């Protein structure tokens, strides 16, 4: 399944890049990520408590960052396994500076298998888009934090509010 999208983050590209490669920030931004431990060079072991609504599950897996070309591009490879199923994916992220904001383009291929895929197939794309939106909303908040300040908090409703206000901003910008 292909997932792709573009998100505009109101933060300079250097700050967004720093946030994207910082495991402590990633752990706060990836929805439901409870643990992100370094296991090697740009390689991490992760535990994610992920889900939408009543459907939730715990996934354990590995995350690897490759082809890193600061501050414009990297490739992320993920594989995870959990009770509801398994997933394997790879994605390319490209960052472009635009008037003080950063446009992040991502394009990836994800395979989902197990119970989640057979029963939940009709919701997977929607769930993937939702989680990507949550991730980039949280990332924007992190990238906007000044050096030395405490990190922002990311509750579900806070993230949802940020996402909604981002959506409203985009709608009104067109007019």
């Amino acid at each position, binding site marked *: 399944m292909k997932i792709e999208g573009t998100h505009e983050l109101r933060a300079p590209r250097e700050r967004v890049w720093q946030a994207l490669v910082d495991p402590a920030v990633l752990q706060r931004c990836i929805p439901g990520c409870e643990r992100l431990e370094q296991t090697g060079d740009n390689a991490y072991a992760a535990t994610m408590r992920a889900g939408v609504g009543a*459907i939730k599950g715990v996934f354990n897996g590995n995350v690897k960052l490759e082809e890193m070309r600061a501050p414009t591009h990297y490739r992320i490879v993920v594989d995870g396994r959990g009770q*509801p199923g398994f997933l394997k994916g790879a994605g390319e992220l490209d960052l472009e500076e635009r008037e003080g904001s950063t446009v992040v383009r991502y394009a990836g291929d994800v395979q989902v298998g197990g*119970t989640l895929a057979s*029963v939940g*197939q*009709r919701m997977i*794309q*929607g769930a993937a888009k*939702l989680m990507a939106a949550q991730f980039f909303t949280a990332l924007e908040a992190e990238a906007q934090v000044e050096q030395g300040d405490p990190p922002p908090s990311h509750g579900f409703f806070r993230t949802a509010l940020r996402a909604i206000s981002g959506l409203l901003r985009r709608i009104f910008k067109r007019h």
Partner: protein
Amino acid sequence: MIPAQFDYVAPSTLEEALSLLAEHADDAKILAGGHSLIPAMKLRLAQPALLVDIGRVKDLSYIRVDGGSIRIGATTTHHEIEASASLRDACPLLSECAASIGDVQVRNRGTIGGSLAHADPAADWPAAILALRAELVAVSRQGERVIAADDFFVEMLTTALRPDEVLREIRINAPQGRTGQSYKKFPHPASGFAVVGVAATLTLGGDGKCQSAGVAVTGVAAKPYRAAQVESALAGSALDEQTAAAAAAHAAGGVDANGDIYASADYRRHLAQVYTRRAIAAAAGRIK
């Protein structure tokens, strides 16, 4: 598969249910008819530690029709709504929508409140609720609040209900005067869920033209939505074939459509237009 181990409690009052929810927070889940939750539990996609069964709570299941004011209790089953003669007279969209849900067994057990709180992107009730501009009453230990249908569906499987809230009642002001309603659905051949479902309610003004329209779509996007562009295209129009077709062209405008192995996003967008046109035509044809 069988569900993971869970505790079960069946309170007899709403206060008890709310206390249990508050006490157990993330571990507790409300059980109504169970026809969205239990299949998920059997597949272990949902594993609540405690099920709080509100099926035995008094006074949560009722249908009250008072002129144009309709109030339906959250644990009223789809069948009870389908079979209610007073509802069919007051607001036939509700009967038609109820009759299209799942199958007989699902309609006998599933509840309107449970279906709305679960907010499956392909559920049928959300389309009717949005088209009718219903209000949903949520209760918690802090008190009650009324949520407008437009604000209720936040995201896929996510509603505006807080974790400590229970949906208690659905309130609808049935359209008065010269009105017509219809629910048109393309059911998935295996699951019966709406690949696309469109609810339409039309009211004529004194001049014989459309005074107001409610059109809502389910199954197409990650959450159900009111097709506002379709509604404004219909307002003030003669509700003939041409206007219906022109209005229906906006059915999926600006919407991020779902794609899956059964129907691609493009196909769903196309279906949304076709079924919107059919729902408008059927509703217009029923106006007396």
